C-alpha cells in the first residue's frame, strides 16, 4: 500500500511539473494500474466434469462435481496474453451393480466401483479478446502439463490400483467478469476440454472430459 502511495505521489508530482507548461492533466483518464503493469491474478475454481469419448463408453460415464483447482497467472502488460500455472484435483466415480465378469477362465461376480482420481499440474496461456479493465473479458486457453493419476477399480471391497504420471493437455474457452470496473475481484467462467494420454485395463484411448467451471479471482500488482 505504501508503495502505491509513493508511486501515486511521484506520478502526481511529475505530472504537476509537466502541467506547468502544458494544459491541466486529466488525472482520471490515467490508465488503471492493471493496464500499466504486468499483474498477478489468482483464481480458485469449482468444476463439473463430464466424461466423453471412449473413457465414458468403457469406464466412467457419470458426471463428477468433485473437482477443484487453483491457478496463478501473470497478465502481461501491453499484450492480450496471460501465462500461468494451474493445480487441480479431480475425481470420477461410478458404481456398477452386481454383474458377472469373465477374465480368461475365471468368472467374477461383484459390485464394481470404478474410480479415477487425478492431480493435474499444468501451465497455460490465455488470449484475451478485450481489455484488462473491461468488465467482461472473454478468453481462449491452451494448456499442457501432467496428470498424477490413480486408477482404482474395486471388486466389492477388493481393489486393484494403478498409479501413473501421464501427459495432459486442454483447450478452454472462458470469460472473466469483474465485479466492478478497475476492481480486483471477479468471477471466472470456463468450459474446457481436457485430454490425458493413458491406457490401462478399461481405459484404452485416454481420459477425456468436458469441464465447466466457475471460479473466483483476485488480481493485484
Amino acid at each position, binding site marked *: 500500500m505504501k508503495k502505491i502511495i509513493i508511486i501515486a505521489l511521484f506520478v502526481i508530482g511529475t505530472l504537476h511539473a509537466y502541467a506547468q507548461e502544458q494544459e491541466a492533466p486529466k488525472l482520471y483518464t490515467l490508465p488503471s494500474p492493471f493496464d500499466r503493469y504486468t499483474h498477478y491474478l489468482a483464481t480458485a475454481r469449482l468444476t463439473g466434469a463430464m466424461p466423453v469419448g471412449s473413457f465414458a463408453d468403457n469406464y466412467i460415464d457419470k458426471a463428477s462435481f468433485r473437482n477443484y483447482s487453483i491457478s496463478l497467472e501473470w497478465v502481461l502488460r501491453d499484450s492480450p496474453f496471460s501465462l500461468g500455472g494451474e493445480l487441480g484435483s479431480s475425481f470420477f466415480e461410478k458404481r456398477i451393480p*452386481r454383474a458377472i465378469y469373465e477374465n480368461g*477362465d475365471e468368472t467374477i*461376480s461383484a459390485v464394481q*466401483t470404478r474410480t479415477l482420481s487425478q492431480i493435474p499440474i499444468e501451465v497455460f496461456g490465455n488470449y484475451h479478446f478485450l481489455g484488462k479493465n473491461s468488465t467482461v473479458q472473454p478468453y481462449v486457453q491452451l494448456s499442457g502439463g501432467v496428470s498424477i493419476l490413480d486408477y482404482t477399480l*474395486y471388486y466389492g471391497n*477388493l481393489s486393484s490400483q494403478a498409479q501413473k504420471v501421464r501427459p495432459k493437455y486442454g483447450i478452454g474457452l472462458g470469460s472473466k467478469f469483474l465485479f466492478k470496473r478497475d476492481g480486483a475481484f471477479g468471477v471466472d467462467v470456463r468450459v474446457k476440454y481436457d485430454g490425458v494420454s493413458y491406457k490401462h485395463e478399461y481405459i484404452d484411448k485416454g481420459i477425456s472430459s468436458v469441464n465447466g467451471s466457475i471460479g473466483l479471482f483476485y488480481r493485484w500488482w
Partner: protein
Amino acid sequence: MLKKASLLILAAAFGIMSCSKDPISDLSTEETLVYVTNHDKAANYTQYKTFSIVDSVLVVENGQAGTALTELDRDVLVRIMTNMEKLGYKYVRPQDKPDVGINASWISNTYLNVVSQPLSNYYGGYWGGGGFGYGYPNYYQYYQTNENYWLISMLDFKNPNTVDKTFNVVWDAQIRGAGINDRQFVDTMVDSIFGQSSYLKIN
C-alpha cells in the same frame, strides 16, 4: 506479495490433496462380497453322477491346517449339498466312491507389514515422483493385515491322475468380502457360486 500468494497456493494444494473420501464406504455387506469361480474347460461334467463332501471345513491359517465344524461351517456344507443336488448330482457317502468330492476351506492369512513414517503413499506421496523423498528420520511402524476367504473346490475322483497320484480340481470357487463369516449370508454366497457356474448342471 508473490511469496505470500505462493504460500497460499501451496496450502490450498495440500488441502485439495487431503480431501479424498473412501469410495466404497457406502457398500452394503452383501455388496462387498466377491465370487470368483474357475473351471477346467476340458472337463465333461455330465460324466459325473455322484458326489460327496467333507464332513468339516478345512481351516488353513498361515499355511497351517486343521478342521472345524462351527454352525457357520455346517450351514455352508449343507447349502453346498442342496445346490449340488439341485444340479443333478446324487449324494453318496465318501466311502461309496463318489465321482466328485467337494472340499470347503476357510483360508486365513495374516501379514505383517512394515512402513516408515510418515505414511508416504498417503499424504503427499505424490511429491516423491521426482526422485526425492522426505527428509524426515525414519520411524518404522508395523501393522497387520488379515485376509479371509472361502475356497470351495471340486475334485475329480473318477479320473485320478495315476502318474502324479493327484485328483484334478475341475472347479473351484472363492468367496471374499466382508460378511463371509456371517451365517446370514451363507445361502446367498453358496447359491451365487453355483449360480454363476451353469456348466455344472447335469440334469
